[in-house]
């Protein structure tokens, strides 16, 4: 492989150009690696703040044409047998008008089993006054969001009138106030399952079953298994397509911008290589006289740009990963994002491998043009006597 011998010697002889070319590509790659680590980190953080806490992994609905899931206890037992399921919460949801001292507000009443619902939605984390447990202790009790409490001007211990057309009017005692930092705090009120059943005058039915798995990426698998039990189930990706959409658009535009930076840096290599081809015209002619074929001349120069690309890629990935890990471990002492005081960088091996391969390929392609110019030189003119 004398081509590699020549290519490497060219690179080591032009040490300064080589170093600057590698640095230029390296810095661009560092930026890409670093930003990828931020992207993955924030995505992860976003998932753990939303998918992992605020939304169920899988939502099970009544069969086609039905308003309710009737034999929900059997269904829950079956779902419980599915691998990876760690929480199941049956819900009965109904609309209601809450009234307290002349103020009223339309709300959604969600009848829950407190323990079960906490295992899927971690509601106990959001309580700011009172407790969810009291829902099961005292009948006809309610937990409201802080925004709703403010609207109705109610406090713990107050009794709200709940009514709705075709429902049995009832009184609900406020036993807790929660804050989930979402708009639901104004419209969602929690009661026990039996309270909503009485209110809607139904028994032994639910409207929805929420399920949590041990890993959000298994949601699809779990929902497909529930489908086979005869109930339509959908994973969080189906019920919240906008999350995936947003991340995809952001990730794509990010990758395009940074990919362009790498391409620009590679243009630097192209121009260095052109200069080197011009400098080495006589040498190329002499190599041809010694019996180096055009294809091999081409190979020598493509190798040079590929090697520069590979070195730049490796350097950049290393620097980018180091920078991300350093910044990720740094405690800023203030909240960078809701509830976290360090930037959540995630450095993934597969990102590094893809970035290095991408840089290598770009530079390989970039080298083709100057290399083909070199290979098309006519030996007589290249040696250029007289």
């Amino acid at each position: 492989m004398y081509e590699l011998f020549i290519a490497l010697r060219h690179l080591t002889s032009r040490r300064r150009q080589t170093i600057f070319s590698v640095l230029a590509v390296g810095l661009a790659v560092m930026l890409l690696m670093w930003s990828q680590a931020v992207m993955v980190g924030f995505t992860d953080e976003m998932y753990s703040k939303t998918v992992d806490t605020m939304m169920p992994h899988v939502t099970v609905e009544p069969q086609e044409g039905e308003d309710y899931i009737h034999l929900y206890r059997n269904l829950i037992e079956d779902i419980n047998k599915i691998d990876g399921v760690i929480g199941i919460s049956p819900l009965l949801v109904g609309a209601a008008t809450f009234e307290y001292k002349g103020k009223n507000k339309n709300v959604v009443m969600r009848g829950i089993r407190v323990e079960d619902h906490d295992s899927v939605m971690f509601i106990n984390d959001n309580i700011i006054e009172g407790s969810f447990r009291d829902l099961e202790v005292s009948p006809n009790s309610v937990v409201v969001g802080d925004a709703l409490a403010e609207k109705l001007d109610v406090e713990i211990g107050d009794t709200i009138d709940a009514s709705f057309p075709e429902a049995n009017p009832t009184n609900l005692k406020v036993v807790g106030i929660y804050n989930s930092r979402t708009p639901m705090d104004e419209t969602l009120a929690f009661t026990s399952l039996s309270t909503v059943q009485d209110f809607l005058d139904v028994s032994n039915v639910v409207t929805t079953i929420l399920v949590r798995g041990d890993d959000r990426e298994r949601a699809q698998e779990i929902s497909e298994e529930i489908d086979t039990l005869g109930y339509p189930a959908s994973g969080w990706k189906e019920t919240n397509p906008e999350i995936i959409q947003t991340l995809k658009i952001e990730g794509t535009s990010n990758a395009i911008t940074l990919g362009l930076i790498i391409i620009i840096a590679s243009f630097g290599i192209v121009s260095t290589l052109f200069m080197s081809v011009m400098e080495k015209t006589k040498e190329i002619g002499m190599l041809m006289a010694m019996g180096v074929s055009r294809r091999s001349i081409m190979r020598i120069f493509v190798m040079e740009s590929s090697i520069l690309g590979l070195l730049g890629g490796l350097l950049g990935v290393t620097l980018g990963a180091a920078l991300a890990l350093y910044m990720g471990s740094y405690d800023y002492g203030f909240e960078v994002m809701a509830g976290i005081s360090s930037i959540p960088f995630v450095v993934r091996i597969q990102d590094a491998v893809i970035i290095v391969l991408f840089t290598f390929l770009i530079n390989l392609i970039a080298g083709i043009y100057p290399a083909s110019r070199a290979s098309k030189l006519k030996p007589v003119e290249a040696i250029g006597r007289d």
Partner: protein
Amino acid sequence: MSEKYIIQIKNLTKIFGDGVEIKALDDVGLNIEQGEFMAIMGPSGSGKSTLLNQIGILDTPTSGTILLDGVDVTKMSDKQRSVTRNKQLGFIFQYHHLLPDFNALENVMMPLLINGVKRSEARKTASKMLEEVGLGDRMKHRPNQLSGGQNQRVAIARALVNKPSIVIGDEPTGNLDSKASDNIYELLRRLNREHNQTFILVTHDKRMAAKTDRTIQLVDGKICEDSRNGNDD
């Protein structure tokens, strides 16, 4: 057609230029035997270098044929031409044209490496060759660390290392003083006798030409004189 001719040139014509055409070679015919040590002379612009480039298959003719060892090189593919240049031909130019990034030994190794010879073996053969041209103690020097005469010796070692049957020199001593020039001539002559290789040298130097076996005079792209010099052993 005799088998003894290593080079047979027939009706060779080379026309340069677009618009104004210049006939650099005009219907040249020439036969050269194995082991000949010959000189091509002529005023500048007479077509000597063009003829040499044709024999060295560095360029293609406008018409005519060149047979090297019985094979028509004008019909070869780029790959075949490269292989032929590597194995059958050795080039020595006025300026040494060594690869500046490689030391003397590596420069001489290069034709062997291109030929696919193993690195260790190439190193052995190349150092023997460098010793033969009297540079056994300069192997690790780069071209910019050697004198003009030394570099030319390295270039000669490189031209001969693959044991080519034909060695082509375009004013190989044109850039050297007369003493260095004599040394180079003696070296080429000795190698010619030892290995029975064919040498074709373009030169302006009448003194040097007189010492060859055969001299060809070119004028306006035509051979006007072809003389034996009686130096044959």
